[in-house]
């Protein structure tokens, strides 16, 4: 009996290790773009995986266990933004999180993203980076599809204006 339990535990741990290895970085990366902080994104992603492990017996039987982790991670990130006012830090151009490497377009985009309301920024990251369709974003954000389309529409207007201004300024 003990042997069966130990074997089952090893299989469960291996499944979890695989999921963690494949999905941790993509989830943390998307959250970092949303939160404007790699450290916060990493903490949130780790918390989501810890919660997943506690329920792994059930979650591992889902068709896409990573979707559960992603949903929890995004909910945690949104809650964290609300509580800690990371948005304020996001607007601070002297942030230490700035990463050397992104091209000028990406830097301009990062600054433009920081000016978006949270729900618009979340929709932009999920749609353009994670590649989720509007319906899935609506489900994940517990919003109507119409609301998500509005967020994306307004975000695009703001981003277009800001990015064009950047190009004009640079010229």
């Amino acid at each position, binding site marked *: 009996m003990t042997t069966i339990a130990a074997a089952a535990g090893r299989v469960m741990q291996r499944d979890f290790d695989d999921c963690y290895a494949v999905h941790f970085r993509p989830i943390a990366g998307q959250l970092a773009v949303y939160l404007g902080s790699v450290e916060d*994104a990493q903490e949130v992603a780790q918390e989501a995986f810890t919660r997943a492990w506690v329920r792994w017996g059930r979650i591992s039987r889902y068709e896409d266990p990573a979707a559960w982790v992603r949903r929890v991670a995004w909910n945690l990130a949104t809650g964290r933004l609300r509580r800690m006012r990371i948005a304020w830090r996001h607007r601070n151009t002297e942030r230490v999180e700035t990463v050397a490497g992104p091209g000028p377009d990406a830097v301009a985009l990062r600054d433009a993203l920081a000016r978006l309301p949270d729900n618009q920024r979340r929709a932009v990251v999920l749609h353009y980076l994670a590649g989720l369709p509007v319906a899935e974003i609506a489900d994940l954000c517990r919003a109507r599809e119409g609301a998500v389309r509005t967020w994306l529409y307004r975000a695009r207007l703001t981003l277009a204006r800001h990015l064009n201004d950047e190009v004009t300024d640079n010229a």
Partner: protein
Amino acid sequence: MPDLDDRLRAGLIDLDRAARERVRPADSREVAAAGRRRRLAFVTAGAVLVTALAGGLASLWLAPAPGGERGAAPACAPAEATAFLRGDVTPQQSQLVGDTLRDSAKVSSVTHESSEEAYERFKELTRDSPDVVNSVKPDALPESWRFTLACSGDFAAVQAQLVPLSGIDDVVCACEPRRSPSG
């Protein structure tokens, strides 16, 4: 605005790639260990809650009626206690714990509870929180012997008798602050 869409995607991928390079994931075993600690804390809290509720109910049932023996010394009130067994306890070890309790003059009643029965009771207590129930597996709640002390003041003596027995994980009483068998 197809051009804008392309610029957005390219810029976001650029930011994402830069962020991923800075991400330093902890070892997945550490995450699993944190999850295990959290689940253990939750299960222990659930077991204590079950014991405390049982003890509280027993105290209500066994308390003297209002206006009864007013002024009687409270030092000898009955109390509900539980001896939790380890996950690897053998039937013989469990039986010895039960026999020890039955042989004790300080114990007025003894009941065995399997982990399946404990799980059913746990489900009943947390039926309004399905996520909580789902996070605990039937075998996570320990087998136990639940007993009633005629006098709550005798708990320490009975506990001292049980703790050295093989297969004992913890002995708790709603009448006392929680303490571990080793300390």
